C-alpha cells in the first residue's frame, strides 16, 4: 500500500515537473504541439482516403515511412550500445549515461513503431499480429520477429529506466542483482533489434540491392555512429545546463569510438561497391541509379553523395585528435554523421531497392506533403516524449527531486 502511494507521488511529481519550465521550455513544447496538430491533420487525410495520398505505388511500395522506421530502429539500438564502453572504461556517471541512453531508446522505438503503423494499409487490423488473438506468422516472417523484439526491447528499457528513476526518487539503492543483469541484457537485445530489421530487407531475394550479407553488419556499424551522435550533443547540453558531470575524456572517447565504427561502415560500404562494380551484373543498376542516375533520372544522386561525403568528413574529424577535442568540430562531426546515416538508412536504402522495380521499370518517388506531415507528427511526438522524460530524469537526478523533500515541504 505504501509502495503504491509513493509510486502515485512519483507519477504526480513527474507530471508537475513536465508542466513547469522556463520561457524556452514552453516555446519548445508549444512548437512541438503545433507541429503535431499540423502533421496530425495530414495523417487524418491519409486515414480517410487511404495511402493514395502518399507518392508510393505498386512499383515503389515502401518509401519515406519505412526509411524513417529503419533509421529510428538504429538510433534505438545504438543508444544502448553506449553502455558497453561506459562499462569498459569505467566512465564516471555510468548510471546517468545508461538512463539517458534508455530514454532515447524508448522514444526512438515508439517513433519507429509509429512509422510502421503509419505505413499500414489497415491500422485497425493491427491486432491480427497479436499471438493467439490474431495469427502471428512466427518464425517464418521476419516482420513477426521484428514486432516481437521491438516490443520486448521497448518493455525492457521502459521498465528498467522507470525503476531506476523511481528508486532515485525514493532515495533507495536499486536492486543491483536483478537490474544490472537487465541492463546488460539490453545490449544483445539492442543488437538483435537492428539485426532483425536488417534481415527484414536482407532476406528478400527479389531485391538484389538488399540481398547482400553485408547489410546487417553495415546497419550495426552505422547505427553505432548515429545513436551516440544524438547523445553526444545531449550530454554537452546537460553538462552546460545541469549538474550532469561527464568528463571531457568520456566525450572524446565516444567520438573516437564513433570514428572506428564509421571506418568499419565505410570499409563494408566500399567492399560492396567493389563487388558490384567489378562484377558488373544487372544488379549494378540500383547503385548506378543511386550514385549516377539512370536514363536521365538523377533524383537521388545529390543525397547519395552528400551521405558518403558527410560520413567521410565526420570520420576524419573524429579520427584526428585535434578536431575531436575541439568543441566546434566535434559538434559539426556529430551533425554530419547524423545526416549521413539518416540518408543512408532512409532514402538511400529504400528507394534504390525498388527502382528499377522487379520488372525492370524505373519509376520516380518523392515523398508527398502528407507523408512529410505524418512524419513530422511522429517525430514531434517522439521529441515531446523524449523532452518530458529527460526533464523528469534531470529533476530527479540533478535537481535532487525526491520523496523526502516532498515530505519535509508538506510538514513545513
Amino acid at each position, binding site marked *: 500500500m505504501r509502495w503504491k502511494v509513493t509510486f502515485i507521488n512519483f507519477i504526480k511529481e513527474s507530471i508537475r515537473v513536465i508542466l513547469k519550465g522556463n520561457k524556452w521550455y514552453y516555446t519548445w513544447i508549444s512548437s512541438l504541439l503545433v507541429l503535431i496538430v499540423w502533421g496530425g491533420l495530414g495523417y487524418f487525410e491519409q486515414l480517410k482516403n487511404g495511402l493514395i495520398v502518399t507518392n508510393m505505388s*505498386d512499383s515503389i*511500395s515502401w518509401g519515406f515511412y519505412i526509411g524513417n522506421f529503419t533509421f529510428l530502429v538504429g538510433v534505438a539500438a545504438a543508444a544502448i550500445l553506449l553502455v558497453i564502453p561506459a562499462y569498459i572504461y569505467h566512465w564516471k556517471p555510468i548510471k546517468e549515461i545508461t538512463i539517458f541512453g534508455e530514454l532515447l531508446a524508448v522514444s526512438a522505438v515508439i517513433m519507429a513503431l509509429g512509422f510502421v503503423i503509419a505505413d499500414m*494499409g489497415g491500422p485497425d487490423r493491427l491486432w491480427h499480429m497479436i499471438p493467439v488473438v490474431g495469427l502471428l*506468422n512466427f518464425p517464418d516472417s521476419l516482420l513477426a520477429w521484428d514486432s516481437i523484439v521491438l516490443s520486448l526491447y521497448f518493455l525492457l528499457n521502459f521498465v528498467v529506466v522507470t525503476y531506476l528513476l523511481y528508486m532515485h526518487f525514493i532515495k533507495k539503492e536499486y536492486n543491483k542483482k536483478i537490474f544490472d543483469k537487465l541492463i546488460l541484457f539490453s545490449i544483445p537485445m539492442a543488437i538483435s533489434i537492428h539485426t532483425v530489421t536488417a534481415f527484414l530487407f536482407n532476406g*528478400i531475394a527479389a531485391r538484389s540491392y538488399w540481398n547482400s550479407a553485408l547489410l546487417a553488419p553495415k546497419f550495426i556499424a552505422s547505427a553505432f555512429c548515429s545513436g551516440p551522435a544524438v547523445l553526444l550533443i545531449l550530454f554537452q547540453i546537460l553538462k552546460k545546463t545541469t549538474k550532469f558531470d561527464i568528463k571531457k575524456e568520456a566525450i572524446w572517447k565516444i567520438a573516437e569510438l564513433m570514428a572506428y565504427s564509421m571506418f568499419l561502415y565505410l570499409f563494408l560500404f566500399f567492399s560492396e561497391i567493389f563487388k558490384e562494380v567489378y562484377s558488373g551484373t544487372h544488379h549494378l543498376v540500383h547503385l548506378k541509379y543511386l550514385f549516377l542516375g539512370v536514363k536521365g533520372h538523377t533524383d537521388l544522386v545529390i543525397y547519395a553523395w552528400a551521405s558518403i561525403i558527410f560520413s567521410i568528413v565526420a570520420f576524419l574529424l573524429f579520427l584526428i585528435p585535434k578536431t575531436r577535442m575541439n568543441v566546434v568540430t566535434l559538434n559539426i562531426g556529430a551533425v554530419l554523421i547524423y545526416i549521413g546515416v539518416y540518408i543512408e538508412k532512409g532514402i538511400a536504402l529504400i528507394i534504390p531497392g525498388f527502382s528499377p522495380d522487379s520488372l*525492370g521499370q524505373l519509376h520516380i518517388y518523392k515523398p508527398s506533403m502528407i507523408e512529410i506531415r505524418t512524419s513530422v507528427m511522429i517525430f514531434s511526438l517522439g521529441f515531446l516524449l523524449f523532452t518530458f522524460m529527460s526533464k523528469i530524469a534531470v529533476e530527479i537526478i540533478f535537481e535532487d527531486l525526491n520523496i523526502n523533500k516532498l515530505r519535509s515541504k508538506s510538514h513545513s
Partner: protein
Amino acid sequence: MSNNKIKEKKESRRTFLKKTALASTFATLAACGSDTSWDEFFQKNFKTLENDDKNKIIERLEKKYTEKYGKKFTVSGKDPIDDTLFGYGLDISRCIGCRKCVYACVEENNQSRDPQIHWITVLEMAKDKGVDLFHSNSDYDRELVPDDDHFYFPVACQQCENPPCTKVCPVEATWKEKDGIVVVDYNWCIGCRLCMAACPYGARHFNWSEPDIPKDEVNPETHYYGNRPRYKGVVEKCTFCVQRVREGLYPSCVEICPVGARKFGNLLDPDSEIRYILKHKRVLVLKEELNTQPKFYYFY
C-alpha cells in the same frame, strides 16, 4: 478507510474512462476503414475457420455486396479440386501485345478502375536484346501492335511452388492452396506490403484507395479468395481466376486471347495441354535462379 474507498471509486472511474477512450479509438479507426461492421472487424483468418463460420461470413458478404451494387451477388467458398495442380503456358512467339487479356482480367476480377489496377503487365521487349527486363517497357503506347522490332512478354502472378510472398506475410493472410493457387484473405491482410517487396514478378497490387468498380460493370459471380470486391488498404493478385477454374472453366485471359497464346491445364494430368507443352516445346520460367519454381511457363 473512507479515504481509500473514495480513491478506489476514483480509480475505477478512471479505468472506466480509459476503457471508453480505448474503445472509441478503436471504433474511430474502424470507421475510418470504411463500412466495417463489428462482425467483420472481429472476423478471424478465413483458413482457420470451420465450415459453419465460413458459410456465415459468405452469406454476410453476399448480402453486403448485393446491397452495395444492386445486383444479386454470389460468393463461392469452393475448395480445391482433388488431384489438381494448375499450370499456365504462354507462347511468346504468338503474343502480339494487344493487352486484351489485361482488360478482360480487370472486368472478370473486379479490379479498381480508378485508380486502375492491372493484374497482368505486358512488357514490350526489343528483339535484339532478348528477354531483358531492364530494357523492357510496360508503358508502350502504339497505334498498331505487334511492332516489327519488338516481341511481347506478359507477366502476372507466376503461382510459385515456392512462393516468397507467402513466407514473409506477418499474419498468414496469404498462402498457397492445394491446387497451387496463391490466394489472399482480403479480410485478414493488414496492408504492410512486405509481400509486394518479396515478389520478384511485380504480381502483387495494393488498393491505395477505396477500389472503384462501376455498378453496371461489376461481375457478381465471385469467389472469397478471388474476384469479390476488395477493401482499401489490402493487397490483391491474380488467382488464375479461382472462381472459374475450380468450376472447370478457363481463366478469362485464356478465353479472350485472340491469337491463342495462352494455355492452361492440370499439371497432374498427363494428357493435359499444359503437359503436352512441357514435353514438346522449349520452355523457360522467369528468374529461374531465385528458386521460386513458377507454374507459369513461357514457351516458343
